[in-house]
């Protein structure tokens, strides 16, 4: 059964990591569902399972649920990501192909900042970044009424063109403008002389869990990341929130950046596995609804 209103409220209270942002992930993965603490999505062809269970569930119990879903939905492919190995929740049927897209990497994980102890005065290099911003006339703005301008779009596009950004994140980031139009969010921006140097998007899972959805900045604009995270953390702290998901890191440098903000919890590292029925027309690059839909007659190009 799809996520009901009361489940959405409960989900907001139970969510503990970026990966629980079901309304955002659903734009790419399909209709969101929750059952037995398992968040999953279905788009008509692909079943996507998130093994960051909403409550610490026994994967053994989840296995029965997943196999029942598999029988019921008859997907052409299954995508499983999260800290629980796919083999613990799903038995690969005969004739299916299994692809390991990502193995647990110590640098790739979500970081949850504790806002109850957050103190900007103790964040390394923040004073220097703030002083630099003042001397350069950089202005930091935060608003829930800001809208997406062409400068925002250009920063997003520059970011997604970076070869280090993987296909999934490119799709997720590309949907940020339409997401902001459908559901206005809080934006933090840094401006200098009419030029947008960077911005960050604050989203919420339910109403109770703030998430740093994504951030973008001009290349070479030193210290802008510091200003954006600081403003978001202060904003959430003053609104009474106790934690803020800073999102996934992909490199050691980014992980260290996210951990410098104070007391934080490191989420588990994760697997990402794709399983495809033999003879399926799906390719790994067209695993998600969006690229499948936008690419013309993709079966012809296999």
């Amino acid at each position, binding site marked *: 059964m*799809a*996520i009901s209103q009361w489940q959405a409220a409960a989900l907001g209270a139970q969510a503990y990591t970026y990966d629980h942002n079901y*309304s955002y992930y*659903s*734009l790419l993965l*399909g*209709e*969101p569902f929750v059952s037995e603490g398992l968040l999953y999505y*279905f*788009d*008509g*062809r692909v079943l996507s399972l998130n093994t960051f269970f909403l409550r610490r569930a026994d994967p053994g119990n989840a296995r029965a649920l997943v196999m029942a879903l598999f029988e019921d939905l008859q997907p052409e492919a299954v995508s499983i990501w999260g800290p629980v190995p796919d083999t613990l929740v799903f038995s690969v049927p005969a004739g299916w192909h299994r692809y390991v897209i990502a193995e647990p990497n110590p640098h790739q994980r979500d970081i949850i900042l504790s806002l109850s102890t957050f103190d900007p005065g103790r964040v390394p290099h923040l004073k220097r970044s703030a002083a630099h911003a003042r001397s350069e006339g950089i202005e930091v703005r935060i608003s829930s009424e800001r*809208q*997406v*301008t*062409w*400068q*925002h*779009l*250009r920063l*997003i*596009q520059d970011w*997604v*063109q970076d070869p280090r950004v993987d296909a999934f994140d*490119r*799709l997720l*980031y*590309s*949907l940020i*403008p*339409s*997401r902001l*139009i*459908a*559901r206005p969010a809080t934006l933090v921006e840094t*401006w200098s002389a*009419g030029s*947008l140097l960077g911005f960050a998007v604050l989203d919420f899972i339910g109403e109770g869990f703030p998430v740093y959805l994504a951030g973008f900045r001009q290349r070479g604009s030193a210290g802008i990341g510091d200003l954006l995270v600081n403003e978001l953390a202060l904003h959430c702290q003053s609104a009474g929130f106790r934690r803020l998901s800073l999102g996934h890191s992909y490199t050691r440098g980014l992980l260290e950046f996210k951990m410098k903000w104070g007391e934080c919890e490191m989420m588990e590292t994760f697997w990402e596995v794709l399983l495809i029925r033999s003879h399926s027309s799906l390719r790994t690059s067209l695993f998600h*609804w*969006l*690229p*499948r*839909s*936008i*690419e*013309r*007659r993709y*079966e012809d190009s296999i």
Partner: protein
Amino acid sequence: LDLRNREVMLTAEQQERVFRVGWLMDHDWEFLSCLLGEPFLEQDLLFFFDGSHLSICTWPVDRSLMRDGLVQGVWSVLQACLKKLTPCFVDLWGPEFSMPCGLPGFRPVTAHPGCASNVNLQIHYENYALPANRNIRNALQAKRSGLQCVMARARSLTWKHMRMFEDFLQRPDIGPFDRTYTCAAPSLAWSEKTVFFNAYEGDRLVGFIGVRECLENVAIATWAAYEKEAYKVSDFLQLCLIDHYFRSGIPVLDLGYSIRSELLTYKLRWGANANNGSYADFSFARSDYDPSPGNRHWLARSLSV
């Protein structure tokens, strides 16, 4: 015009103006900005800029400007944009007579003149009578056979919606713009201004029409898909839509563009009128810029890097 240094898109007053006087689907700036970039309003013309591509809608927000000064207005906006925004690609769409023949420093890329089979179709309730024809009978028969319409506002699409969209987009006659256009649907389905009219046969979704309610006087049927084998679903949903907006007091229901002659015939059978005229689309690229045919819109470019 001071466009480069402006830090906001449409001002609140401009948004209000488009809401009050906008009169066809091309004035749904929120939806179009998902695909084309930041929206602007100058000389009562909406245009969009994404950092490199400029898209100008030459259907004026105030309909009365269709008669006087439209060509001058388009040219004036175009000149200002070329100077201030320095785009490398320019796309214009709207009435054919408003299209420029050429742009200095640019070469023509596409020129789609108006076509009698591709027109915007609208139902104006003020002088509308439901035609008594086969489509109405089909719709009523479908209703009697148990088809039900359930409206959903600001909700996630279900997997059945996504599957039907995907099947629809496999059709060879669907162009790149329509693909990108559909890809914004899951995001916009969450908007308070988006309503899906869903047809159910029992508990099975068999078709839907997605409507944008973003203009005061016009409801816009924006997306639709049906299961091929579903019984008269399209007729059933058309009737539900026409009936709903008649009751709600919105004076105009925009059924979108006809694209091809069969769809034109179908929409005309519902009593829609084609008074807005045909639609032309011209584009130009700077001499040193080579746009890929499928990547003229921001969202498509961003998705297909």
